[in-house]
């Protein structure tokens, strides 16, 4: 009898990452986009206490130098206190510039006129106020806002449209959440941030995976193969749970609009981004 060697299928594992290679690539991206193309040299990052903004701050510090990275902590009265202390641990680890700006007065100043606003609406207002502050700090500090959204939340539509996704450059937007964790471990992000359950922290006891109804590991594995073009039936054949596949498919297909600019009525042969086509860096 000869020894039989079995071929390995792709399986149901989430996508892997060479974190060192990705870090070098993203540092070069930040230097090119911020320093060379825009001649700015400074970045401003909203530091939430979560792993995405922590990794973004680490990358910016490596690319630009810690003295050129301004971290803004923007807690609301109901925010989990641990978010603030976790963000502080990133500032201390990197030696970046930090400022804390409470958003409670700004958020409640509006919401006093909308006492019936539910948690979703209140969360949206918080996200939009944070982005307002980030852009104003950008103008004040002559620093470019750097986005922190990852590929998983972009694909699942798990972000506030034209709030979280507005910064002009984003180093993490083509990395799945599980890859961001890999990158965080490589960069030396404080362990507590890597280990804790991800949360938008817009409501008490909120977690991303609770909101989404699926773990990031399962969602990322499905997304990675789905984007290549494998059908739902093929994914189920490969061992994914049918409910998970359907959930991911529904979220992606229901949120294409969130990954685009507003829909503009076309009336002429020179419609912007339809006929009149210029690259963003032209």
């Amino acid at each position: 009898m000869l020894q039989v060697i079995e071929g390995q299928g792709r399986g149901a594992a989430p996508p892997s990452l060479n974190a060192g290679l990705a870090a070098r690539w993203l540092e070069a991206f930040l230097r090119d986009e911020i320093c060379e193309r825009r001649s700015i040299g400074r970045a401003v990052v909203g530091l939430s206490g979560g792993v995405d903004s922590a990794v973004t701050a680490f990358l910016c510090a490596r690319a630009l130098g810690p003295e050129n990275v301004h971290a803004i902590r923007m807690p609301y009265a109901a925010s989990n206190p641990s978010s603030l202390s976790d963000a502080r641990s990133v500032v201390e680890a990197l030696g970046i510039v930090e400022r804390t700006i409470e958003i409670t007065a700004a958020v409640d100043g509006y919401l006093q006129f909308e006492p019936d606003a539910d948690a979703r609406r209140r969360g949206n207002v918080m996200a939009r106020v944070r982005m307002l502050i980030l852009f104003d700090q950008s103008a004040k500090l002559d620093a470019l806002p750097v986005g922190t959204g990852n590929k998983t939340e972009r694909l699942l539509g798990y972000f506030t449209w034209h709030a979280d996704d507005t910064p002009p450059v984003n180093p993490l937007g083509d990395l799945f959440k599980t890859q961001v964790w890999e990158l965080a471990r490589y960069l030396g992000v404080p362990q507590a941030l890597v280990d804790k359950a991800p949360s938008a922290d817009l409501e008490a006891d909120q977690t991303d995976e609770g909101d989404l109804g699926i773990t990031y590991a399962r969602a990322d594995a499905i997304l990675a193969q789905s984007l290549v073009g494998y059908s739902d039936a093929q994914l189920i054949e490969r061992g994914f749970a049918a409910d998970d596949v359907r959930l991911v498919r529904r979220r992606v297909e229901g949120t294409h609009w969130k990954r685009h600019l507003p829909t503009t009525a076309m009336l002429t042969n020179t419609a912007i981004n339809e006929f009149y086509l210029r690259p963003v860096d032209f």
Partner: protein
Amino acid sequence: MEPLGSEGPGARPFDLAIVQTKPRKGRYGENLDALREVFAQIGERPTDLVVLPEAALTGYFLEGAVYELALAADNFATDLARAWCGVNGGRAVDIACGFYENFEGTYYNSAVYLHVEGTAAHVLHVHRKLFLPTYGVFDEERFLSRGRRLQTFETRLGRAAMLICEDIWHSIVPTVAAVKGARLLIVPSAAPGRGVESGDELASVVRWRSILQSTAAEHGVYIVYAGLAGFEGGKGMTGSSCVVDPWGGIVVAAPLLGAFVLRAQIDPREIDLARATLPLLGDLRAVLPDLLLDEELPIPRGGRDAAGH
């Protein structure tokens, strides 16, 4: 245009420089000024041939702005020659460089090969990219027309062919060039990097290297690969320029992303040795007619393809 050495074109070693450019998007004049400084640096040492990437002085992703930046080949060659002569006087050199070409209102992704002597630019060849990637991140055929011919051409350094980027991914293209006598394949390229899942290098760079090395070794040719560098709207052009010898070995290679000058000496005698050791090209010449004349191939005959369309 005298051949180097007394034995005829392509008989003597020559000195090559690759300029891995990192242009400012759309700023042709500014990029040409920067190139002049690099030419001065290169001119400090004997240099017979300078090779630059695809879209070397404009950037690659231009979308509709390609119509504003495309140039007639003669005008582009004159600009290159003036840039060289402005800092190196009348010293002769050959230059190969990728650019967007405006040929009487038809637009191509092209590469020009010119010989500069005195202050004159002699255009020896213009290659128009055959395979315009129009999928995924690429959108070339929305804006550009396909080239239709693959020609080899004689230089004082030997017979050469230019293949732009995806041209060399189709193995039939370098094969035809080699069969038509090319000993030097010049490959200007603009390759957006991707693939960070595993391995020590980007998956796209590994794939490129593999193609270049296997192509060089199969046909016994030198390949000079000049890669554009720098980020364009989030897409990082890998650079990774290199020279591959006729054995498939890497002579010199640039790192990812940045602007660099690479130098190497090309020794045409290596080509003869490699081909004598592994005579695949000679074997191919014998069998190629049988392969190409096979009636089962879907090649249009008499105006129709094999399916009768």
